[in-house]
């Protein structure tokens, strides 16, 4: 979850104070990991510095009055662009697995057992996420689903790669 953009999104709804933003963030996105106050205020300060929000702490010497944070036109544009553009698909894990497999084959190590070990870890995580889905709130269930579909895609890749290891080994060694 991208905290600055999410806070911008909450401010797009209505101007708000740091404390309320934190509470709202935690309710929607926090799960079991609430956003620390420090991070809320440091993020809001950076957003203010970059001209994406206004408000917050009054000028030094201006007394205890605080103004609610308010999104600027620049902030709105940034949030809008983030919301409407597809995010970068996440090939990171795949790339790590791929590197491991290719290196294992190059080094004559047991690539198949690395893949098996990864399969076990994936299934374990999928069981955990399924349990969250079965017992959690709708929001938790949908987050868990997101994880499940990703892990399932990894598993399919693991299966396909397992089935083609011999051919891949030949290819790797011929390069």
């Amino acid at each position, binding site marked *: 979850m991208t905290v600055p953009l999410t806070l911008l999104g909450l401010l797009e709804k209505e101007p708000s104070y740091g404390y309320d933003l934190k509470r709202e963030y935690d309710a929607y996105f926090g799960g*079991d990991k609430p956003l620390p106050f420090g991070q809320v205020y440091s993020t809001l300060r950076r957003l203010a510095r970059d001209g994406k929000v206004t408000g917050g702490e009054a000028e030094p010497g201006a007394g205890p009055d605080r103004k609610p944070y308010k999104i600027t036109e620049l902030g709105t544009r940034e949030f809008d662009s983030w919301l409407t553009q597809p995010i970068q698909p996440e090939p990171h*894990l795949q790339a790590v697995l791929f590197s491991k497999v290719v290196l294992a084959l190059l080094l004559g190590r047991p690539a198949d057992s690395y893949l098996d070990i990864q399969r076990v870890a994936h299934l374990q995580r999928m*069981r*955990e*996420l399924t349990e969250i889905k079965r017992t959690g709130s709708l929001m*938790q269930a949908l987050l868990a689903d997101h994880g499940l579909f*990703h892990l399932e895609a990894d*598993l399919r890749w693991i299966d396909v790669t397992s089935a083609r290891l011999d051919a891949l080994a030949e290819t790797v060694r011929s390069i």
Partner: protein
Amino acid sequence: MTSVNQPPRPAAQAARPIIEARDVYRSFGQTPALVGATLAVQPGEMLAVMGPSGSGKSTLLHCLAGIYTPDKGEIWFDGQRLDTLSDTRRTELRRTAFGFVFQFGQLVPELTVTDNIALPLLLGRAGRKAATARADAWLPRLGLDGLGGRRTGELSGGQAQRVALARALVVRPKVLFADEPTGSLDTLTGEMVMELLIGSAREEGTTVVLVTHDARVAAYADRQVLVRDGQVMAIPEAAVGAHAAPAAHAAGAEVAAETEVEVRR
């Protein structure tokens, strides 16, 4: 037996397996489907048997359920050899101790929902009134209220699978065998069927042997094993280590990482 995750919980470990395949071989013509498959399922356990098409996972289920006889090896159910029983005795056992759900419900389209569910009881010579009452009791449990009088040919795929599930559970089987039970359903409908399957089996204390190629379906089970080339796959010891946990690159995975979950029930 080797599995693709931790060994069963201590309580289950101590118990005698409810069903077991010991070094089972089975071929179809010249094609070997199982070549030394060994698997033990503990009472009350929910086990998913995974594997690609043609790996032998369905053959293993059919052998465990006494539908196929192994060419070699042994099948044990509740302390007795299943594969050496007479056909009559094995058929009897299948009807009374086992329940089956397949990819396509295999309901009798001319019969009503209630009659389909009651069928195993009627075949067991239960009185019609008692059988119907027991069948009807399953309707609300599986969200089939008001559908008892419908012909099963008129049902949606998800409804039909729920009827098939009720028919499998109405005899209160010791083991429920499910072969790709969500294979013909969309994601959400399949999840609903799995939820009901796991929930009902758990309430009844029924052991589940679930065959699926779908990891998301398999994740409903307590434990997964992988069948490959006719064998239940051996997994390296290191596999159990937490170091192999996948990177929490997906939002859902982060939820899991932050949440204490009792995976084994």
